[in-house]
């Protein structure tokens, strides 16, 4: 199963060429940041053991639309994710974890810091990453199939070829037979499957999940977690997920990272050593309980620092 992983990793030499082509444009557009200046050029030659996602000293600020006041949402976060790893960030609602994910997706421009996927600098959205949004946000005028191939279509893949490539994804997320439905005819869980398939079909190196099951009811959520576990078993994608469900984080991940309350900083990191492949059965092991309690403890301590604690479990 792990040889799928080897296939996904690009040749490092080719990577360096790619960088050489894009570097001047990327450097010109960005504001001066100290990390990039002090980083020696050797970083350009990515070595195979380098992490797939490399985030260094990331700062994200938001401007208040009325006053122009700047608020820090993410403060000097550094994070590495190895290829094939499933990493989840948990934290209170509004702690800045979604901002972090959006920055990695290229949807939010950070104030400073560097982000690289497979050695390639993140400068906006790219084909190496796909996002599964919390809301399915399927285009209502497109059928399930046409929603799934949307990303491929935008990249100029001809429709018949895109449809062919989507076939295996449709089986993977169990949407066979629903290809010609419109999103309105689907349940929330089904819509989220389409959302997932749309992300998988572009074959990203890094899959970004933004609270993907938060809007689903408890039972559908569990089903979707099972699906995600089995999909991950097949694809071994590198995943960065954001959630506020502690049990979900522990169940799915290799590593759980707790973000401190706003502005987000890396709080505590937990290695989840539960055996793979996992199922919902993993919930009943004492190790699961122990880890969930530990994570909860760390989150709770950051919650109690809030002046108006609104996070009650």
């Amino acid at each position, binding site marked *: 199963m792990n040889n799928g992983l080897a296939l996904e990793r690009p040749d490092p030499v080719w990577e360096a060429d790619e960088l050489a082509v894009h570097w001047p444009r990327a450097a010109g557009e960005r504001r001066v940041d100290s990390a990039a200046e002090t980083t020696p050029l050797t970083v350009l030659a990515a070595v195979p053991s380098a992490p797939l996602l490399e985030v260094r000293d990331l700062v994200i600020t938001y401007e208040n639309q009325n006053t122009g006041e700047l608020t820090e949402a993410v403060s000097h976060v550094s994070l590495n994710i190895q290829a094939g790893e499933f990493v989840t960030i948990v934290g209170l609602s509004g702690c800045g974890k979604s901002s972090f994910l959006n920055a990695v997706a290229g949807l939010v421009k950070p104030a400073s810091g560097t982000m690289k996927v497979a050695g390639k600098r993140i400068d906006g959205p790219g084909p190496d990453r796909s996002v599964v949004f919390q809301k399915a946000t399927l285009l209502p005028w497109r059928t399930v199939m046409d929603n799934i191939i*949307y*990303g491929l279509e935008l*990249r100029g893949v001809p429709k018949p070829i895109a449809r062919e490539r989507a076939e295996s994804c449709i089986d993977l997320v169990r949407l066979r037979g629903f290809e010609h439905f419109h999103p309105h005819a689907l349940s929330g869980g089904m819509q989220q499957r389409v959302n997932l398939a*749309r992300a998988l079909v*572009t074959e990203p190196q890094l899959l970004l999940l933004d609270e993907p099951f938060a809007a689903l009811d408890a039972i559908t959520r569990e089903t979707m977690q099972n699906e995600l576990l089995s999909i991950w078993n097949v694809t071994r994608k590198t995943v960065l997920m954001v959630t506020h469900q502690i049990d979900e984080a522990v169940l799915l991940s290799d590593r759980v990272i707790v973000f401190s309350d706003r502005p987000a900083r890396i709080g505590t990191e937990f290695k989840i050593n539960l055996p793979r492949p996992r199922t919902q059965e993993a919930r009943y092991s004492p190790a699961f309980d122990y880890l969930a309690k530990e994570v909860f403890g760390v989150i709770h301590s950051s919650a109690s620092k809030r002046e108006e604690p609104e996070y009650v479990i």
Partner: protein
Amino acid sequence: MSSDARRFRARKFRENLFSLGLSGGVFVLLFATWEFVARAHLVDPMFSSSPSQVLLTGWELINNGTLLKHVLASGKVFLTGFGLAVILGIPIGVALGWFKWFNRAFSPLVSAFYTMPRIALMPLFIIWFGLGMGSKVALILLSAIFPLIVNMQVAMQNIDADYKRVGIAYGANQWQLFSTVALPSSIPFLLTGLRLAMGRGLLGVVAAEVFGGAEGLGYMIQYAGATFQIDVVFVGVVVIATIGVIMDRSLAYASRRVDSWKITET
């Protein structure tokens, strides 16, 4: 089909039939009263005409080709003006809604024209474009274009931000965002705009032809009124109303068809 579904459809059919009979009954009653009042000389038939007289005159106008001549003349003017409004109005509205700077530059101008009664410009148009087709087309164009501009502008400004975000996340450029997100989601607005524009355009035709010229339904009505041919006036009114209803219904039908993605597919 299950027996439940059959019963349901039968009930729906009866309900539809009943409402059709109801609205038809109102018309019949109205015309019967009119006919009676005219025949009993309760009002002067010279001023009121009567349904039977209108029908007779209508038949005559159809047979001698007068009606067709006027309908074609009006139709030509309408289609030219309406067509130009569609060709110009949609891109202008899209640009106003899509480009912020364009909106800032031209929005006040559009508002100024939007609120102005177009018929007030007719004397100017006659001076500029003559009494023929030019001035009429100009009036129709100016009447029909604004609903299209405003609706397309609103459509562009109301694109769901989440859909845009999906497009951006999957690497859409500006053109792709426009063609895969903005355009499809603007179709309902476009159809509303077309319906409104059509109504305004129809008003424009009649107004322009009443104002001046020598052919068209508006001219026919105006001339008939001036010469006390009340039945001819009514024929003109009925023809215009019928054309309007047919066009409006077909656009309404088109809207429902286009919105079919909102309906569950089986």
